[in-house]
């Protein structure tokens, strides 16, 4: 920058009378606040309510219906014809083949044309975020102008637990063995290794419920939740039609005392309980992304701008600590610091790892998951990354002024980080 060089040249001389120089020229690594036509921007995002798996109102709803509801809603809200989409990427974990066929069915249930392609991605819990990165990457590389990034999971209809066909030799490799460690044990490992007490975990869980409850009651989720009409069969076998509008997992009556009574779920002497872990859930979310020039040419609004992204691998038996590494990496890339970020959405797979990440990075608690997290809201695996992004963008927009946000999800050996920001309704999404 020529003018910067000229001015800094003026500051380099020492005065003839000598004296100490307090002047330092620090180069700000942040990319210019001015936007460019090549920016990858998020136009809009919506999600379904998150249902309690096996017991909630979505327990009999196939994932393609959930996915279709959000895909249609996003396009209808923007008045955009689906034939404008260059690609659709859907995050999913538990469906056979990560839901490749399911997604195509959802596509046609939404009456999208056959000319628009769709595929699925599985990066475990961060699949929804990975879908975002994939679509962003396709936009950046110029192969598409606009795309839909989605995530969906029905944990009512599919179980975790079948890792697939694995080589018996995995037992010979320490890290490979660690990959099949149950999630709950990874949480215990983190709690033990980093000294995160049961009390701290429970307090964090209470806070998640309280924040989610406040958000619900004040109507903060209204703009983002798509009402879904579906059928559910009750205990007697009667089928009825319901409209699902509310996240089911929130328990405002949760107390420290109440949580303290729960037994450890994964290890007899452990600290991870059902109360301070994320819930098993059903839900879907979708985000419309595009290159800024294409978005503006269509007269569409910009909700956020992607600024940076990072993915970091960590020991598989402690996968929950991923965000503590990935967040700094993404911030570095964006030229920002923790202090610049207004909202952090960190997935609460377990209170142990969420607390570890918050403490390790010294994140101000009032900026972390301000509307609650997976402990209160639930964690529909493939959906979560996209869901958190939708919630973050709506929150930043609600605040009405420029800001940055970060979305971070840990997953088995592969955390994802996604810093975001908002500027008068513009979202900066770092992925």
């Amino acid at each position: 920058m020529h003018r910067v060089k000229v001015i800094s040249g003026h500051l380099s001389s020492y005065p003839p009378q000598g004296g100490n120089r307090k002047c330092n020229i620090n180069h700000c690594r942040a990319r210019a606040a001015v936007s460019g036509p090549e920016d990858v921007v998020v136009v809009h995002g919506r999600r379904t309510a998150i249902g309690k798996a096996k017991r909630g109102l979505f327990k009999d709803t196939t994932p393609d219906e959930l996915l279709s509801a959000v895909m249609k809603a996003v396009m209808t809200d923007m008045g955009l014809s689906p034939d404008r989409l260059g690609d659709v990427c859907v995050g999913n974990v538990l469906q056979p083949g990560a839901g490749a066929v399911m997604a195509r069915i959802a596509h046609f249930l939404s009456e999208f044309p056959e000319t628009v392609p769709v595929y699925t991605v599985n990066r475990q819990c961060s699949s929804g975020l990975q879908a975002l990165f994939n679509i962003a990457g396709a936009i950046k590389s110029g192969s598409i102008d606009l795309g839909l990034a989605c995530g969906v999971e029905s944990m009512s209809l599919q179980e975790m637990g079948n890792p697939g066909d694995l080589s018996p030799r995995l037992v010979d490799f320490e890290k490979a063995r660690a990959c099949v460690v149950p999630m709950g044990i990874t949480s215990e490992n983190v709690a033990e290794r980093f000294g995160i007490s049961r009390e701290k975990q429970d307090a964090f869980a209470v806070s998640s419920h309280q924040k989610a409850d406040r958000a619900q009651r004040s109507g903060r989720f209204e703009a983002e939740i798509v009402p879904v009409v579906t059928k559910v069969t009750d205990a007697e076998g009667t089928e009825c039609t319901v409209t699902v509008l509310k996240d089911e997992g929130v328990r405002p009556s949760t107390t420290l005392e109440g949580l303290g009574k729960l037994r450890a779920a994964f290890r007899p002497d452990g600290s991870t309980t059902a109360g301070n872990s994320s819930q098993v859930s059903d839900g879907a979310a979708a985000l419309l992304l595009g290159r800024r020039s294409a978005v503006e040419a269509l007269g569409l609004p910009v909700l956020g701008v992607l600024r940076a992204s990072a993915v970091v691998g960590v020991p598989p038996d402690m996968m929950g600590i991923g965000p503590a590494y990935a967040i700094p990496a993404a911030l570095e890339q964006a030229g920002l610091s923790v202090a610049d970020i207004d909202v952090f959405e960190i997935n609460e797979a377990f209170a142990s790892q969420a607390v570890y990440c918050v403490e390790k990075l010294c994140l101000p608690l009032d900026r972390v998951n301000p509307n609650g997290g997976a402990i209160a809201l639930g964690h529909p695996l493939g959906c979560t990354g996209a869901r958190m992004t939708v919630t973050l963008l709506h929150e930043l927009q609600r605040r009405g002024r420029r800001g940055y946000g970060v979305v971070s999800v840990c997953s088995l050996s592969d955390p994802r980080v996604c810093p975001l920001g908002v500027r008068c309704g513009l979202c900066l999404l770092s992925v």
Partner: protein
Amino acid sequence: MGVKVFRSPARHGYAVEGSPFIPTRLACAASQYYGIAGSGTLLVLEETESGIALVKSCEWSDGLFDVAWSETNENVLAAGGGDGSLQLWDSSSNHSAPLRVAREHTQEVYSVHWSQTRGENLLVSGSWDQTAKVWDPTLSKSLTTLKGHEGVIYSTVWSPHIPGCFASASGDGTLRVWDIKSAACRLAIPAHKSEILSCDWCKYDEHMVVTGAVDCSVCVWDLRNPRQPVCQPLVGHSYAIRRVKFSPFSRTVLASCSYDFSVRFWDYSSSQPLLETVEHHSEFVCGIDFSLHTPNQVLDCSWDETVKIYTPACLTAGTHTAGP
């Protein structure tokens, strides 16, 4: 009498000049993002009983780095832009567009000055493209282009006494004096070993010129004897001098403003030349001017988004004796 302040949020002042016609009027060339990027605004301001009011603000698509009031029309001003353009503005019109735009310089125009010499009605501009240009008051086409500087030009100022003569200060470390009739450089003084950011003529003695430089010193020169300055360099500022101005009311009094956030007043004929240091800004002070109508009144502007009008104590002290 306190300090009157005008705040221009998100606009950082680069130059300020009092109107030669209307005693309460002044103009400030200001830029967005400290002039590094973004747009510029020409602020036409009016001093009131209690403060400073906005008369008109003119937007330009690049930063504005200098302003000059017309010497013949009380509503007209010229401004120099970061895009190499010079614009002519009418402060009395409702139009948002300038009267005229001249795009000849190929780099930032850092200086623009309207001649005050009787009979003459010309503008001079100085640019980072290392040339100075002379213009008629309609800015239709430059009359002459003066080359010779080997560095960016920061300042071009007409002599108040000698027709067709102006001085320039440059990043090449020289103070040059030009004659436009012969389109030639009459004198090139290697005045500083660093970049010279500003120069000005004494209003009482046609041979005296002051320079302010990146080496943090202010030097006064007698053009008849240019080998050395007339006195010891005036030192005190701790960072580069952005602008220097001779007082219109005193032969030997001048002002300097600096990157060190301060404004200093000097009497170079005194054994203790520093009269006063005014530290009322929180950022680089880039613009300074003496009022022609109200003796001892000073106008300045800074990157801290303010323009200030005040009367320094040292100037009202009567006989300009050295201050504390």
